[in-house]
């Protein structure tokens, strides 16, 4: 799968109009300079040579250097950007799960009662709200009007000075360095973007959980459990929810994979320096190396997440064996 994707992205990028040198230089730069830069970047080599070089680099986990914006090693740029996306996506997914699983199960348990209607309404509304609109509303209310939370960034500008960035996941870095002021600032900066992303994601989890728990609650073993006098909460949350989790886990895997490629809109609204924005900038700049390397790395992540999801299946359902 990774090989196929790497090949497809390599070909598609070459089919797109434009090149990184023209894009970067714009109206400036002599024809000689452009020709020399194209030559320096190896863009004059036959496509098969470029492709072989790309696959060789991928096999060695060498992501190469970007073709534009300072030509930094892509590994360095991903090292700065990817942890930021991870720091946003992981808590947002956890929040979406919390919001999705508990109300989803309550709605299933109280089917066709007031809580069910309320939760379903919430899930439809939250699912249909554009993430950038919700983010903007939160910014206007909690930042501009109330001044409670920051509008943008990962950490307060002054507090962030001198923070040792070991992992570039600032929650971890601030804990590792024992800098609790920074830790607090990082948490505060996470509130709005995580809530925005988590809420929007939660709508689909609510609906999926509800429908699967309803289905599970109609199974014979649930009737048997109730007949044995097992407490209703245990039946619903201990048995029904656990058995309804397989499609939810599948969805989590898919969502996390998509979000790791960049929660683009959320990152844009909150000026979050993550992968989404990076990838868009590089696509617009026709930075072949950066785009194909990043997409290939994502393919590897998606494969890893798929594996993790498969392992989770077997934990959730003992009948599943590989």
């Amino acid at each position, binding site marked *: 799968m990774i090989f196929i994707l790497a090949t497809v992205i390599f070909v598609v990028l070459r089919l797109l*109009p*434009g090149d990184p040198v*023209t894009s970067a*230089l714009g109206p400036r730069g002599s024809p000689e*300079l452009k020709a020399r830069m194209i030559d320096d970047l190896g863009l004059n080599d036959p496509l098969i040579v470029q492709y072989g070089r790309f696959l060789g680099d991928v096999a060695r986990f060498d992501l190469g250097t970007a073709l534009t914006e*300072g030509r930094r090693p892509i590994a360095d740029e991903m090292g700065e950007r990817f942890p930021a996306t991870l720091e946003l996506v992981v808590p947002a997914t956890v929040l979406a799960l919390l919001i999705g699983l508990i109300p989803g199960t309550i709605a299933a348990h109280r089917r066709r009662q007031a809580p069910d209607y309320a939760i379903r309404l919430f899930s439809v509304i939250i699912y249909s709200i554009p993430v950038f609109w919700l983010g903007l509303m939160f910014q206007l209310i909690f930042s501009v009007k109330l*001044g409670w939370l920051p509008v943008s960034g990962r950490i307060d500008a002054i507090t962030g000075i*001198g923070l040792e960035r070991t992992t570039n996941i600032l929650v971890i870095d601030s804990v590792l360095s024992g800098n*609790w002021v920074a830790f607090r600032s990082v948490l505060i900066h996470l509130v709005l973007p995580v809530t925005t992303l988590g809420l929007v994601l939660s709508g689909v989890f609510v609906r999926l959980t509800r429908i699967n728990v309803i289905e599970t609650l109609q199974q014979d073993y649930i009737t048997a459990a109730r007949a044995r006098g097992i407490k209703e909460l245990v039946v619903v949350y201990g048995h029904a929810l656990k058995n309804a989790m397989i499609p939810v886990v599948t969805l989590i895997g898919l969502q996390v994979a998509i979000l790791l490629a960049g929660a683009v809109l959320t990152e844009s609204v909150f000026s979050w320096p993550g992968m989404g924005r990076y990838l868009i900038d590089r696509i617009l700049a026709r930075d072949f190396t950066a785009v194909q390397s990043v997409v290939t790395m994502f393919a590897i992540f998606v494969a890893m997440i798929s594996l993790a999801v498969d392992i989770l299946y077997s934990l959730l359902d003992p009948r599943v064996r590989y």
Partner: protein
Amino acid sequence: MKRTTKWLVLLVVLSVLAAACGGDSSTTTVAAVDTPDTTAAAPTTTTGSTDTTVPAEPAGPKTIIIGTTDSIAGLDSADAYAIHDWELLRNIGEALLSFAPGTTDIVPGLASDYSVSDDGLVYTFNLRDDIFFGDGTELDANMYVDHLTRMLTLDGSGGVGGALGTPFIESYRAVDDRTVEITLKDAFGYFPQVVTGAPYMPMHPDFPLDALVEFPDAPVYGVGVWMITEYVPGEQTVLEPNPYYAGSAPAPKVDRIIIRYFNDAPTMAKAIETVKDGRGEIDIAWRTIGQPDLLAELEGVDGLTVGTVPGGGVRFMVINHQLAPTDNADVRKALAALVDRDEISDRVYAGTAEPLYSMIPVGFLGANEAFDDVFGAPDIPAAQAFLTAAGYSETNKLQLQVAYPPEHYGGTAADLIQLLSEQYEASGMIDVEIISQEWSTYIGAVIGGQDYAVSLLGWFFDYPDPDNYLAPFMNNGGLGTMITDPDTNEPIDADAQALMDLLVQAGTETDVDARAALYADLQEKFAENVTTLPLFFLPEHVVYWDYISADDAAATIESLNIGPTFDLHYELLDTSK
């Protein structure tokens, strides 16, 4: 999980949360840079009859946070070509000559003075005695010559050496420890303006002679007022004063400048509006917040000032002189006569764009309104007469393609082209077809001169001189005007020859008044020939809180001393918070 393990996990989680919610019990480490101690003394208070000294919070470094939507593309002056990179380099470095804040007046920089040979070819710069990098390393003429070698030979990805070095410099040498002599290829009257640019700012001698260092490890030392002590691409850059600076710029009034990077203008606008503890999330928003609705919103906020910075980026239509139908002079004149710049400014930019009647914007030597003098646009009857002369009528309409890049000039570009098309079609003799093409393909097609008769382009100067607003559109194909041959630079006709002659004459003239007169003449001919079609320039805006002030070093206090050169001098800024 065992019950004891669960309790242990709970305890750890609670401890972390408690720490997170706790007060400011720890201090943040700051960049370890050896700078003079500027911490204020702790004040004392006296209560009743008993003297009680209350230990006050030590005042932290006085800091100003500046927001921007720019990003760092590279910090090596031998390659940097982006506006924000130049701003940083101008603050951490110094060129041979400088501009007085807020103006285009040349003042001493690294060179305390300079002389020019009678033939205008040899410039001799006498360096100051006290030029130091942030780590105490002293700069001499030989080191400066090494820097010139780097800039001219490395000619990096931005081609800055190829644009601002090699076209001008024939040779250079260190005459002695404090004297640099530069011999030019021709007598360029505006060479003093050229040597104010970032390429003429020396990097630290640790920078290798044979390789560019676009993202050097911090601290990044220049010979200017500031040094970069820390930067995280995409997040922020931190600058502190260069303790060894002894030049003519005033000493910084704050201990630290932080540049904070934003993805877009709306988020930056909200950040400056967000106030906590009496201070904005950022103190200043500078570049690029030009969306009319945002400016209107910010102007309505108590305590915020929106300053307008004149000059800078212009927008114009490239008119291809070798491609039908704009190879016909009457067609070009008709297009020029139909443009209503005021309507464009009002309808597309809510009045924030300044109509431009020549390529040289207001504030620069020789700026005038040649297109207004020649065409008095909009003048529909005159345009119809030109079109009739070109053989077109209401039944035989001119079929015109107008091209633009939809993503490169912001969301207003589509509105601009739509309105421009309406203005052309108002003649009743033109049918417009709009072509949108993504930037990297578009710009190649514009410059190549093979595809578009009329296309939108923007321009920002490399050096603030009228030459840089005219020469690029005439020389070597003229960025798509094709009034000269891209390879040989030969003018295509007598009109183009006359323009080129005037350009050379004005460029080599050293007398300011004579230059201004030559540029006035050149602009009239430029307009008559409709070499390009200037539309408007977009002033930049700087937004800041009322606790921010600027040194009254220049007459542009409202724009924090940012003038037509777009230099924000951090050392002139102060804050009362």
